[in-house]
């Protein structure tokens, strides 16, 4: 980006709340159902039907507000946002647009430039629209109202982001947060987390905001970054060529990482908001809010600090453990059985995570019990099995079935051999096998020791204690 410009970005993220039923009626919100099978007369907007607010959705919204340091509004209302679209059955959306349940707040992000707080404007509840499917039929748009009425929270930032990287970090952090407090599964591909970006550019130092453009259809965090990058460049190009930016809504085209215009903002609708007379206002007591506050788990950033301070874990390890609550939970559970914090972190972020990825599993569904992991760590620490054998031979089996690791090692004849006499046999064999390398080693290529250790490892089927082997080799090859 040309250095003389700065970008100003605001993000609107919609998160679908993981309640069992919709915001204003009892239809299920489960994803992937057959079209128009999770609907009721209320969802369909049949004449005479009325909404009734889902208590759980309110709790979830408050949870998120508290996690984002927002001020929670005690007197709550819903308004009607009136417009016509086939997937909007009532011809209006019930929304808290005018009276959000959470005001202000911030989300901490970390970029290459350091840490900072992204200021939020608000979080409010609203109902989702259905789905319009345009490519199923040449002449018609097909409408599926399963999704209509699902509870959403809309999280709106102030125009407080200044780069695509910040935007990337923000959405990443927000996604982690909503999953952490268990209110949303953060699945952008399925649409349970959606992001719209408002982008503008201005000359550095300029106080006035440039004309902003809204970009939609950003269905992955990477695409958020790409779209913003494209937009910023597009806008700068226009300005540099003497043109002016038109306020409009654009859509991201993932096939070529560009954006195209959907409609000009001049067609902006007059939504004629007014308080919904069908819904009683609801007042949140301090008691109610406090109860929800105390039900919140320790949030990721706090936990990271805790891990660093209490357990001496590195920045990286602590962050890795806290990328997801299930990972942190697993760590928490394991350290109930052992104090080898660093080892636990290593196992979790290393071999265990690798295994889970390869097998398309997660810490949510992991079969390995924290207790078993602790025991595994212990036998490695005690020298009974070396780390290499433990991770490549024992772990895969324990991931499928929890057994006593020591017993398993014994059964499989994987106990580490530390007896010098036993080891000497293998060491001698290795030296004999690789006599030419021995010559080179003696000539000065000390790095070759790793080769010999590796050979002993092979000969011993991994059981040789590498530390003792190394010492023996060094002695013999003097």
């Amino acid at each position: 980006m040309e250095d003389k410009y700065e970008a100003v970005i605001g993000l609107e993220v919609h998160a679908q709340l993981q309640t069992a039923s919709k915001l204003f009626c009892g239809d299920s919100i489960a994803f992937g159902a057959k079209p128009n099978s999770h609907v009721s007369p209320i969802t369909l907007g049949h004449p005479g039907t009325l909404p009734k607010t889902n208590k759980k959705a309110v709790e979830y919204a408050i949870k998120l507000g508290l996690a984002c340091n927002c001020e929670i509004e005690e007197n709550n209302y819903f308004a009607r946002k009136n417009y016509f679209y086939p997937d909007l059955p009532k011809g209006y959306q019930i929304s808290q647009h005018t009276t959000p349940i959470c005001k202000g707040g911030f989300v901490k992000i970390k970029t290459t430039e350091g840490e900072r707080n992204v200021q939020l404007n608000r979080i409010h509840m609203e109902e989702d629209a259905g789905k319009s499917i345009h490519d199923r039929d040449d002449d018609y748009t097909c409408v599926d109202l399963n999704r209509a009425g699902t509870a959403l929270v809309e999280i709106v930032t102030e125009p407080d982001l200044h780069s695509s990287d910040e935007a990337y970090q923000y959405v990443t952090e927000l996604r982690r947060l909503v999953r952490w407090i268990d209110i949303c599964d953060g699945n952008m591909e399925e649409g349970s987390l959606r992001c719209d970006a408002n982008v503008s550019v201005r000359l550095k130092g300029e106080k006035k905001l440039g004309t902003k453009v809204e970009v939609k259809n950003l269905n992955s965090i990477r695409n958020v970054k790409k779209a913003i990058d494209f937009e910023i460049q597009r806008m700068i190009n226009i300005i540099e060529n003497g043109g002016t930016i038109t306020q409009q809504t654009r859509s991201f085209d993932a096939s070529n990482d560009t954006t195209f215009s959907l409609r000009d903002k001049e067609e902006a609708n007059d939504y004629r908001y007014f308080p919904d007379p069908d819904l009683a206002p609801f007042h949140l007591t301090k008691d109610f809010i406090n109860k929800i506050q105390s039900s919140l788990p320790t949030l990721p950033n706090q936990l990271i600090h805790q891990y660093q301070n209490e357990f001496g874990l590195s920045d990286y390890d602590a962050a890795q453990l806290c990328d997801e609550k299930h990972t942190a939970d697993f760590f928490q559970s394991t350290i109930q059985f052992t104090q080898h914090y660093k080892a636990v972190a290593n196992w979790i972020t290393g071999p265990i995570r690798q295994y889970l990825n390869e097998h398309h599993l997660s810490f949510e569904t992991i079969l390995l019990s924290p207790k078993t992991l602790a025991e595994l760590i212990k036998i490695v620490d005690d020298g009974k099995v070396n780390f290499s054998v433990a991770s490549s031979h024992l772990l895969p089996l324990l991931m499928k079935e929890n057994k006593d690791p020591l017993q398993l090692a014994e059964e499989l004849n994987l106990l580490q051999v530390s007896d010098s006499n036993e080891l000497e046999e293998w060491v001698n064999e290795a030296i004999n096998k690789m006599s030419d390398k021995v010559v080179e080693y003696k000539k000065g290529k000390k790095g070759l020791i790793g080769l010999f250790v590796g050979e002993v490892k092979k000969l011993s089927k991994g059981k040789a204690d590498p530390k003792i082997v190394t010492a023996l080799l060094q002695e013999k090859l003097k």
Partner: protein
Amino acid sequence: MQVTDTTIDNLAHLARLRFNEDEKGSIKKDLQNMIAFVEQLKEIDTTGVEPLLHMSDTENVLRDDVIKGSISREDALKNAPLKDEEFFKVPTVIKK
């Protein structure tokens, strides 16, 4: 305020209604008269009066997060003007 054809056109579009020339003339008059009629309210001093947003005596009416009340797809599509076995159908929104 003066009610013009544009006023009517904008309102009609917002409400997805359409008026022919005659109807437009008559509706313009109606709107003009209504405005004059309700302007009477300006005579009342409402400073400091909270707008009344809700009529009922109910408050904090919240329901438990329970799945119930869904109907069959057949019933859902029963009254649809145009449909197939799964969807409601409308003229394409995005022209090809």
